[in-house]
């Protein structure tokens, strides 16, 4: 039962023995890189979700993972009710966007202008609320719950440099498409430009005739949809339980900080670095020294180091604030 209860750790085909070095077994190395990129795209999506909200509303959304978890459980119910995985993904993303929009209007908007700490407490409160409700509604009987994928999570395909499971190809494909779509939205559309403007200067945006409130709601909806999609993509591998997004969120925070909290490209690069790094560490270090339990502390250590050495991250711009 290697998959049960180990959350993101189940992503690794944890070898009991120390793996042969890359020059002796290049295939294994290639496989670990590709699998790491797949996991990395999940981290990148979650990190993007965090960065989108941080840039537009200055809020570090600690509830990002629980919003995705909540949506995934709701979709699990729809699957039990007989819907197809593809339908579930579409409905799930729309539901997540709706949750994001409602949270912005009801919980975040009223705290605007209040001290930063108030907003932190609100997102922590949301974290606990969503987690408790999900536990109350769905976490009965055996945990974790199996979550469906439209593709197989075990059958693998040879893509030339490595063998990779069909579901991981789906993760990579959807992940990369979302990143390209977001890039196009922000750089080539009027709506994207207005969202970037709102993130930079609300007063000026208002004076340009931009409905600032609508942009903030849209930003949260978009971010929740991206995060929710990440949750739906990873759930078939990790399975569902109320804490299944917790470690994903920590890894995504690390990715966002590594890349630079106000840089979307940074979030993507950070996500891939963390995903691949996690896989290589798991493969090439002895399990009794750096087991699954030590991964989170290691990532937190990386966070501290980045914050000490380069607080703006790899791609972040130092923020100039007028006081």
């Amino acid at each position, binding site marked *: 039962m290697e998959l049960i209860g180990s959350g993101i750790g189940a992503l690794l085909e944890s070898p009991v023995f120390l793996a042969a070095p890359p020059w002796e077994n290049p295939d294994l190395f290639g496989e670990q890189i590709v699998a790491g990129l797949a996991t990395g795209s999940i981290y990148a999506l979650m990190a993007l979700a965090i960065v989108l909200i941080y840039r537009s509303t200055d809020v570090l959304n600690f509830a990002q993972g629980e919003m995705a978890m909540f949506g995934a459980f709701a979709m699990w119910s729809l699957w039990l009710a007989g819907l197809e995985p593809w339908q579930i993904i579409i409905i799930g993303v729309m539901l997540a966007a709706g949750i994001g929009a409602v949270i912005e209007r009801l919980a975040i908007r009223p705290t605007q202008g209040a001290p930063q700490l108030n907003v932190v407490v609100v997102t922590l409160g949301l974290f606990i609320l969503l987690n408790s409700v999900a536990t109350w509604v769905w976490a009965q009987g055996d945990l974790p719950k199996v979550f469906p994928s439209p593709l197989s999570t075990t059958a693998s395909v040879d893509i030339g440099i490595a063998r990779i499971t069909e579901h991981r190809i789906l993760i990579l494909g959807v992940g990369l498409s979302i990143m390209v779509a977001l890039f196009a939205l922000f750089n080539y559309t009027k709506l994207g*430009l207005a969202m*970037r*403007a709102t993130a930079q*200067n609300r007063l*000026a945006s208002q*004076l*340009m*005739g*931009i409905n600032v409130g609508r942009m903030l709601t849209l930003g949260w909806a978009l971010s929740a949809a991206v995060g929710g999609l990440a949750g739906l993509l990873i759930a078939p591998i990790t399975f569902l339980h109320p804490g299944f997004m917790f470690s994903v969120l920590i890894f995504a925070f690390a990715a966002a900080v590594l890349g630079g909290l106000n840089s979307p490209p940074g979030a993507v690069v950070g996500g891939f670095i963390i995903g691949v790094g996690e896989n290589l560490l798991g493969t090439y270090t002895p399990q009794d020294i750096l087991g699954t339990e030590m991964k989170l502390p290691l990532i937190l250590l990386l966070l501290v180091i980045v914050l000490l050495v380069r607080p703006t991250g790899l791609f972040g711009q130092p923020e100039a604030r007028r006081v």
Partner: protein
Amino acid sequence: MLKVSSVSAAYGPIRALHDVSLEVGEGQIVTLLGANGAGKSSTLRVISGVIRPTSGSVEFLGQRIHHRSPEKIVSLGISHVPEGRELFTELTVAENLSLGAYTRRDRDGIRQDLDRAYQYFPLLAQRREQHAGSLSGGEQQMLAIARGLMSRPRLLLLDEPSLGLAPLVVKEIFKIIDTINREEKVTILLVEQNASMALSIAAYAYVLETGRIVLADTGSALKDNETVRRSYLGY
């Protein structure tokens, strides 16, 4: 064209405007003078809808607009170039200008106006792909004005366009303001601390003191007014 009647406004418990009334006629340049904190910027903010008056009314082209949202007021034809310029410093010059036309749908008209903005401000044309934050102070003020014109306003609210600029640049900015008024037929309500410059181009002027209008007359008459001379012109 614009009629502000007995407007009062407050920021929380602090009252910023007391019973302010003023009028701007079509095609005019009207200036609003006063010291720091006299309520000049607040008056403009009430007109552009950024703050709501606690009492009184604002009429524009016969419509009451003081309960309208800022985005609605922009599309009615009022453009507000705020104090401190408030550019999108991390966006390019071209992006700043296209945001100025955010409420418009006529692509061809926007393109024409963009070309015209670059004709008026050739320096901006050279820097169109640069970040607004990398421009000099004078260029930034020109960009702020050009961005304000991109919504094709009937009335332009200019808040302290000379702030922090070298005297030569100030002269140039005022020349541009005068040209915009005469050639583009844009009515202008100008807030300034540089009273002598403002009075030299304004048809009519109001003086604000601690949130109240204390003087109102033609530009040339106020230039000769004893109090204005001593308090605002400094001779």
